[in-house]
């Protein structure tokens, strides 16, 4: 049996002593932490056009479009610091625009409201949209006075709050015409959007797009970069004006019947939120990010029961 050398024996003694073990553990922790710090520093330090041109980064990005224009987007950038570009726009902003200014909103009139989704990232993705529509009323304090807040221009404007569901003004009076497979009772209509009936209410509709959305670099024939429309028009049902209260007064020789509308100055609101997940391992990604079981077979998404 060979006799161990003196320095090896000492090393072994140190390593197997409690102090040695704890020291090594601490060293491991330091190394683990410093490795992530080093990565972050490297991303910040080694930045050049040559460097970025050689690195293939995979970034997800999605855009909500209204009448062919980008409204809101969130595109993760290729920098390793996790930065992204985003914009949250307003829907319906130009709905009442006319050449000579804005016209008043007209009940029953059908306005163009074409909404769809575009892949604005560099990886392929599956998307879903959640559309909300609801009424808001003026907020009042405990004495019944309207509460005012400052708008972007510094003007005093009434504060609005969401109307209680128990009130009789139905979200159905906000007629955002949604487009999905079988909509309007027409089984022959197919545009790729699937209605998630279990997640939808009279205020909220959830739609899943059954086709993969390709990034711009890979898009082409049969490989769409944007979805079909999931809505095309918006109108407000004239029935909102049917609830009236009348006051009769005498003015000299005249009898005046003044009619006031119960829902005068209510505000209608629509919201659209787009969610996107990566193509690879999409079923697990959707379950993790959306909490919804989906199936993907041959690139086609379907909803699990």
């Amino acid at each position, binding site marked *: 049996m060979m006799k161990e050398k003196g320095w090896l024996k000492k090393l072994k003694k140190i390593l197997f002593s409690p102090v040695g073990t704890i020291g090594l553990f601490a060293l491991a922790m330091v190394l683990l932490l410093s490795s992530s710090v080093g990565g972050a520093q490297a991303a910040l330090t080694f930045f050049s056009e040559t460097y970025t041109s050689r690195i293939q980064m995979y970034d997800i990005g999605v855009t909500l479009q209204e009448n062919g224009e980008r409204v809101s987007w969130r595109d993760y950038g290729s920098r390793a610091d996790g930065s992204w570009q985003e914009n*949250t726009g307003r*829907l319906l902003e130009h709905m009442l625009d006319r050449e000579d200014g804005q016209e008043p909103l*007209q009940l029953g009139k059908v306005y163009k409201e074409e909404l769809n989704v575009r892949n604005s990232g560099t990886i392929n993705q599956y998307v879903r949209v959640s559309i909300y529509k609801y009424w808001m009323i003026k907020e009042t304090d405990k004495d019944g006075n309207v509460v005012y807040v400052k708008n972007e221009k510094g003007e005093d404007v009434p504060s609005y709050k969401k109307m209680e569901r128990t009130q009789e003004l139905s979200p159905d009076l906000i007629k955002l015409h949604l487009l999905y497979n079988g909509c309007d009772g027409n089984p022959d209509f197919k545009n790729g959007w699937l209605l998630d009936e279990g997640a939808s209410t009279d205020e909220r509709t959830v739609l899943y797009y059954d086709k993969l959305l390709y990034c711009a670099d890979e898009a082409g024939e049969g490989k769409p970069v944007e979805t079909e429309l999931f809505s095309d028009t918006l109108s407000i049902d004239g029935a909102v004006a049917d609830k009236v209260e009348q006051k009769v007064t005498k003015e000299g020789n005249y009898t005046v019947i003044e009619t006031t509308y119960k829902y005068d100055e209510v505000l209608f609101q629509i919201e659209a939120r787009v*969610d996107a997940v990566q193509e690879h391992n999409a079923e697990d990604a959707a379950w993790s990010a959306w909490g919804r079981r989906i199936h993907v077979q041959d690139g086609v998404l379907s909803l699990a029961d």
Partner: protein
Amino acid sequence: MKKVNVCLTALAVVLVLGAGLHNIWAYFTTYAEAQGGYVIELGDRTHFEERFSDWTKRLAVTSKTDSQPVYVRAKAFCGVEYSLVYEDAEGKWNLNGADGYYYYSDILYAGQSTSELLVKIDGIKLQRETDPQTGETIYTNDSLEAGDQFNVVVIYESTPVRYDGNGNPYADWDAEVSTDVESDPGDGQGGGE
């Protein structure tokens, strides 16, 4: 001591693997959202004007500046001993024989007024004379005596403009908003008692 070593080693392994698992569980996801809406202005506020002269009522309706667009209609009633004759110089008041209303053809937008609809009270034979004391022109009627009264009742109605699915405006008079007016002929010359 060996147990402590084993535990620390195991903990180190779990931590190192845990750091890697973060990458395994991360998925590429993103989202975008937007919202928007408008306040519904439902008030249609109209004001009516009547002028009485020469046994003629001149009717006009004005939409107030904060009113939404409306359609307007009107009709008048009187006793059986007289009859009413309507005149419309601009040709914008159209009679619907079925209900007897005169419908104003244009949409009345905020701040706009209708043209005048003239309602002449017919059947009263008038004689034009000059008042010997004041020199003013007066109208007399032998069949009328002091204390006689008559009423002409005018009903004005307005209803908010509605739109069909193609964006064409229409009036829903079944959901009408009405302003009923009952008035004496006024204190114009020749009228009243």
